[in-house]
């Protein structure tokens, strides 16, 4: 107990902060991209065009049944090959684990946001859709002006909770040697042999951020609840 040296955190703070910044950026990008593609996927799953609905459902179920770690590594291996086939380059394009993680998390989170948005869309009563059609709105207008804004509002607390989960899940990229917040702390912990101090510190930081956010989500939930 006596030979603990928490000073190591102060000394390496800029480096850790850099890692934390990467974690936050990745979380934000994945949340926005995931919501966008997730909404598209949800609309595809609810589409009356069966093949489209089946493909979307297959994608979502696949993503939800394999570990995130496996998905991260899959995208890491596949991304160079996919980019090669898109750009027609002569050899696989190496984009690095830190950049491929953006695509990984957007695609992975899309599957989870899809399920949330699907529940949100289904929570809107059929009468509203019929009313929109009766007013002469087409599918796109109905979705954009009537259904999605309400679905989004209803699901906002759940979407935010998922973002907190996402924020924690991002830490797994450290296993691909990416310097996110956890990755940075692992590197320092090993270099300076300050394992106990570093990991305790990381746990406290994550706890503080996530706990604060979850309290805010609870407040948000109370405020935006629609009285029916």
């Amino acid at each position: 107990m006596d030979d603990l040296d928490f000073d190591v955190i102060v000394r390496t703070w800029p480096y850790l902060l850099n890692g934390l910044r990467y974690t936050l950026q990745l979380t934000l990008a994945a949340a926005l991209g995931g919501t966008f593609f997730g909404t598209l996927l949800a609309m595809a799953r609810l589409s009356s065009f069966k093949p489209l609905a089946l493909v979307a459902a297959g994608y979502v179920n696949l993503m939800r049944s394999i570990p995130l770690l496996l998905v991260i590594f899959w995208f890491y291996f596949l991304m160079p090959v996919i980019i090669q086939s898109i750009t027609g380059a002569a050899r696989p394009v190496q984009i690095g684990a830190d950049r491929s993680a953006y695509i990984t998390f957007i695609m992975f989170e899309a599957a989870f946001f899809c399920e949330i948005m699907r529940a949100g869309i289904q929570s809107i009563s059929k009468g509203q859709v019929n009313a929109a059609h009766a007013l002469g709105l087409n599918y796109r207008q109905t979705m954009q002006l009537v259904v999605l804004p309400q679905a989004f509002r209803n699901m906002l607390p759940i979407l935010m909770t998922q973002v907190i989960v996402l924020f924690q899940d991002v830490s797994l990229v450290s296993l691909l040697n990416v310097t996110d917040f956890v990755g940075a702390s692992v590197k320092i912990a090993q270099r300076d042999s300050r394992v106990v101090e570093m990991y305790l510190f990381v746990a406290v930081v994550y706890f503080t951020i996530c706990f604060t956010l979850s309290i805010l989500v609870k407040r948000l939930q109370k405020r935006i609840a629609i009285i029916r």
Partner: protein
Amino acid sequence: MNLSIFLEQVPDGDGPWWHMLASGLGWTLSTAFFAWIMAFTLGSVIGVVRTTEHRMLVRFGNAYVELFRNIPLIVQFFLWYFVVPGLIPAVKAWVITLDPTIHQFVTSIVCLGFFTSSRIAEQVRSGIQSLPRGQRYAAYALGMTQIQAYRYVLLPMAYRIIIPPLTSEVMNLIKNTAVAYSIGLVELFFRTREMGEMTFRYYEAFTAATVIYVVIAMTANRIMALIERRLAVPGYIVGGK
């Protein structure tokens, strides 16, 4: 894609590659199995405690759930594997007598057990609270003690109600065992990476792992659906999701 790689021998190991993956699968499933027993027991206790009228206990239960829910799983693995032995000399003294594989195995079970228990506690609490208040009062009116009310009235109903969310927790737990790779447990994901790295057949190895995880997820889903149908209370819960 060349499937014969699975029949090739592992360099300086015993048996072909599929054997390695199968042994990884064994570690994955046994870790998940023991962690589930721990999580289910602990989660039930904490969940029940949170529905009682003892203020202190409720607060303790809430703190417990928040603690394990707000720290990333990989960090929790590091805490159990590095920090706990580093802070408590008695644990360290015990841990160094263990075989490294056993140390990783036990750590993984404890870590996943606590992590999953906080989620189960949350489900058990919401299951109990979803019951009409009259059921508890009726039990008390019949002269049951609080323990009896939980044992014979509240819990048998609550568990049945929360089978669907528990199903997702079983599947989450199995998926989460892959994170034990971070402390070096030789589970399925570890073996998959190892195979990819040693043979450069990443696609074959990762495809195999993907198929295995999908099959596990589907099987777990079927088993839980079967349990759900067997245990359904007639006229109370409509079967299926």
